[in-house]
């Protein structure tokens, strides 16, 4: 009857429009595919690999793969969720993620995704890297201990704010980090403003507004109330 394009996601028919990625189509249909670096407002980055799915038996990132009619996509299988849990554990050991002392706790995508995937421990040996914080800016604190290298702040600053306050630089586990657009490397020496889109884009607790702590008590925050897989249709912060 209709010429609606569909593919199968865990056995369920998902409609899509040409050019949509698997992730975009799934989101539009209200189906949760775990992800960290993807944001509906921005082009896919494809770095976190949480959204890895199996397309016709082959692994691929659902945020970058275009949907094709008739394809068969596995999403929440035990095999894929196992891999995702391992990837989450990698994030938790490479950074310093001490949730009890983090203002983002309860509103944090990394944490909520780890709950969703039942990550009970970091499993691997902790790296405990030394990542200094940048408290130079009058309104914003940068705590790089929690950075997951998603680049959303880079993209938001460039594409929405037109500022290029951030860039990803360096290489590998020791080098890769956010570079700040000033010779001092300090945020205070940039034109960053608390009203920038980039100030509210961070999915974890790196970019925090100063003098705003625990306005919503722990236990009543975004993901405390409802698990992340039930918030697919709601706008992401």
């Amino acid at each position: 009857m209709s010429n609606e394009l569909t593919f199968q996601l865990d056995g369920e028919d998902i409609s899509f429009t040409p050019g949509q990625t698997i992730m975009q189509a799934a989101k539009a249909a209200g189906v949760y595919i775990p992800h960290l670096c993807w944001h509906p407002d921005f082009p896919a980055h494809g770095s976190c690999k949480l959204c890895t799915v199996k397309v016709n038996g082959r692994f691929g990132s659902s945020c970058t793969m275009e949907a094709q009619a008739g394809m068969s996509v596995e999403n929440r299988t035990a095999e894929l969720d196992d891999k995702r849990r391992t990837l989450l554990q990698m994030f938790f050991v490479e950074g310093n993620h001490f949730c009890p002392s983090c203002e983002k706790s309860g509103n944090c995508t990394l944490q909520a995704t780890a709950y969703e995937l039942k990550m009970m421990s970091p499993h691997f040996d902790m790296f405990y890297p030394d990542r200094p914080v940048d408290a130079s800016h009058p309104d914003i604190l940068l705590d790089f201990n929690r950075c997951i290298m998603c680049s959303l702040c880079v993209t938001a600053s460039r594409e929405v704010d037109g500022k290029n306050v951030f860039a990803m630089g360096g290489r590998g586990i020791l080098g890769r980090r956010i570079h700040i657009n000033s010779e001092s490397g300090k945020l205070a020496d940039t034109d960053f403003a608390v009203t920038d889109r980039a100030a509210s884009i961070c999915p974890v607790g790196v970019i925090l507004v100063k003098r705003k702590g625990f306005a919503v008590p722990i236990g009543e925050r975004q993901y405390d109330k409802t698990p992340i897989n039930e918030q697919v249709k709601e706008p992401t912060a």
Partner: protein
Amino acid sequence: MNAPMNAAPVAAKKLKVATTSLAGCFGCHMSFLDIDERILKLLELVEFDRSPITDIKHCGPCDLGLIEGGLCNAENVHVLREFRKNCKILVAVGACAINGGLPAQRNHLDLRDILEEVYQTEAGISHGGIPNDPELPLPLNQVHPIHEVVKVDYFLPGCPPPADAIWKLLTDLLAGRTPTLGHGLMHYD
């Protein structure tokens, strides 16, 4: 709440449970006590071995060991090994046991600098030098979660884990089920 005891055979032997706090704040133990009157039900099923509740100093053979806190000194390592040797099931309870938690926030500092500043150079303290009494356990260069030293069977996150999560874990284990925590009980904060 689940009541596995209803299904348990009357003559079932009481399970032995030991608990301890290593580099922790006893907050997980306090949360444990927050199971309130359910502790009476628990006592019908278990008997406590080494634990702050019993004040028994060394752990004998046990079915279950609950470890709060991470490893910040040599004594923590000895106690952890005693638990691992004696407990069939070992559970890491709370953030510190699982990822080092608050004490591990010292890990980006050099221990030598810490000791020097705390005991020798900081103004307003008595300069008795760095304590070196053999009775005192030496601190480790870094704080570690317990799974980096012994095999851990289950993890119960939270700072502290809510009483209901502790209760869920215990009742699951006592009933022979793999412990699971649903939304609301699973917390890292």
